[in-house]
């Protein structure tokens, strides 16, 4: 395609990307460099049903005036990125000199909010993605062998987990794993431990979230694999049959190599999706034991009485960098393959 044609072909998409993706990122970045103006406090007398007290309150007028002068707030450079709720370099430095063993150092670092969230986010990503690809492939292979009549119905049933809104899906599961819910109670009876609670132990909560993640994401992998399976050429398969190849050998040596690029694609999307895991944490009320980077942004914007824009902006930037780092190996590989093919 000539460059000029390509330019005009790509122009509308590029413009939309700059407007709706590029500019918001730049604006979040600027916001993340700023913190709120100084709050000016004054003493006042408050009276309520419990009596009158002298108290401090924010001097709204004076603070408002500061805000007009500096609508973005005070410039803080990368201060927010480095504070305890984000990269916390100071705290890590202190931990390094204060701790006597690697284990102790690790405990201190993983207790810092950002690293705690990063650990869960990465664990979730890497625990969910491979099973999703595996199960998606198995399900696609099995359904592909069904008779035409059954296929439609089974395909619909299989993609249901993806159709259900994540928040609703996780809420339903949350109630089922309650110590009096059907799954929770059954596990209690099976293991013979009346005090077992899936919600109170952090390990069990993590496992629950990961199983939910696999359940929710598998249909996506399945549907892509299923579509790709329809493109597998029949000639080599027939040839292999004549040569006496078993079903396993046919899948291993013909189908899998053919689907390999598709698997890379699924992995890419899954990693990206799972890196911003959020809804299940809310649905399972798991905030206490499992926090993700997206949840941190939500916490800054929703769970405080006042929105911490700078903090949320900084976490967003770090999330973007995280996704970029995570995807680099896959992208590099795809690029290399692309080059060799040419």
């Amino acid at each position, binding site marked *: 395609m000539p460059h000029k044609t390509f330019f005009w072909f790509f122009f509308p998409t590029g413009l939309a990307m700059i407007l709706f993706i590029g500019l918001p990122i730049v604006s979040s970045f600027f916001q993340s460099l700023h913190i709120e103006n100084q709050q000016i406090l004054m003493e006042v007398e408050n009276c309520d049903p419990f009596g009158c007290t002298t108290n401090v309150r924010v001097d709204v007028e004076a603070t408002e005036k500061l805000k007009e002068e500096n609508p973005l707030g005070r410039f803080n450079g990368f201060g927010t990125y480095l504070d305890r709720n984000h990269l916390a370099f100071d705290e890590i430095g202190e931990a390094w000199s204060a701790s006597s063993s690697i284990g102790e150092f690790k405990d201190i670092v993983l207790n810092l909010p950002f690293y705690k969230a990063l650990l869960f986010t990465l664990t979730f990503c890497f625990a969910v993605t491979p099973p999703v690809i595996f199960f998606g492939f198995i399900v696609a292979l099995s359904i592909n062998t069904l008779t035409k009549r059954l296929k439609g119905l089974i395909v619909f049933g299989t993609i249901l987990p993806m159709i259900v809104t994540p928040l609703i899906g996780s809420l339903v599961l949350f109630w089922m794993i309650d*110590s009096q819910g059907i799954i929770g109670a059954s596990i209690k009876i099976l293991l013979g431990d009346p005090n077992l609670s899936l919600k109170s132990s952090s390990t069990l909560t993590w496992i629950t979230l990961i199983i939910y993640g696999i359940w929710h994401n598998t249909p996506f992998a399945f549907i892509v694999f299923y579509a790709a399976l329809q493109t597998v050429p029949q000639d080599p398969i027939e040839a292999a049959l004549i040569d006496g190849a078993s079903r396993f050998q046919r899948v291993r040596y013909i189908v899998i190599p053919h689907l390999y690029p598709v698997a890379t694609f699924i992995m890419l999307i899954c990693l990206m999706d799972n890196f911003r895991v959020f809804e299940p944490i809310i649905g399972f009320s798991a905030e*206490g034991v499992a926090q993700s980077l997206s949840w941190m942004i939500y916490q800054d914007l929703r769970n405080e009485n006042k929105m911490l824009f700078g903090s949320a902006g900084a976490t967003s930037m770090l999330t973007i960098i995280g996704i970029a780092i995570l995807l680099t190996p896959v992208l590099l590989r795809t690029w290399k393959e692309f080059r060799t093919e040419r």
Partner: protein
Amino acid sequence: MKKIIIALMLSFMTSGAFAGSHTPCGPTEGSINILANEFNTYRIFMDEVKSCAGSDVDFSVTHSVDHNKLQVAALSANPSEFSAKLVTNGSITPLMNDGLLRPLDDLIAKYNPNLNDNQKISIDGKIYAVAFMANAQHLWYRESILDELGIPVPSTYEEVIAAAQKIKDSGKMANPYAGAFKSGWNLGQEFVNMYLGHGGEFFKSGTAQPNVNNEKGVAALNVIKSLTELSNPDFLTQDTNAVKEEWESGNVALMHVWNSGASSLLDDEGDQAIRADTRLAPSPSVGGGSIPATTLWWDGIAIATNTSDENAEASFRALVGAASSAELANNYADATVWLIKDYKGGNTAGPVVDAASRGASPYPSFPHMSLLHGALSTELVEFLQGNESAEKALADVEAAYIAKATEQGFL
């Protein structure tokens, strides 16, 4: 403190022979859109507001347990999403910090509603809210279970723990105690109660520097830990409404929840045997202190700054109509402790009056309190799961608070 008791008592005792003659109900223009917390007493109050608003104006109300998180953003917009907000002494501070509530002096002067003086919440000489009920968390117990095991009603948390242990050991209940320990605002509130009960101060005096990592903080956390060990193992996911459900299912014999819970716990729905067995008791003291480990709250109405004068006036008339309706208060005398004029008093007010008389403090109204409460909400979880020491958890609370308060410009 005496003044408080007198004020509270007065609002119960004033015998109202005649009430409601000039309620300022009946707005004829504008629209009313209210944001409020979600619990039964508020629903009762809102029914009255709605009937007050009449059919001439648009009326809508949003009940949400997340009202605290929504309010600042929703009222900051201009025009604001809501024309009015039901506030408490906790949730009014962030709104005041940003100047999102309008003074009501003009409207009160214009309509002269029938209010007690202690209903008028004044800040720096201006009235910003009209209170209609008082609330506090206190102890609830199942009489038959305590009687059967020969346990006297506990008056300290040490006794509560011993009593719950005894019930557990008797095999009657696996998890006899319940409190709203859900990670988030509820868990923070449990610490606030317990820390104040130990006589703690949240900030170094005169500054916004946190002051919770001390002996009193550690003691408070240890009491909370002992209580959670006698609670449902899912305690970190249970908010007040979930605890009330546990109570109504008969799984719990002792709990520390809001007085306003009476309106749903003592109503005609649910297991009447449990209802008949439910008793209210004063909030226990803790650690040898004399004051109960709880906080006093008022709930009131407030009007948004960023709404049109027309909507503000309509909202004020409907809301203040309900907040001055002796009929509402006396029809639902047991639903809560109404502060409304000519309220004759109900059967459930005792523990709140008791808390006030024994010197419980109101929830702190520092402008930076909500940030500390937020830090408490998330940083105490690991201690309660046994993964962290109390000192470490409190150090984390202070560090998390300092980072946020710095960003917000308080430090």
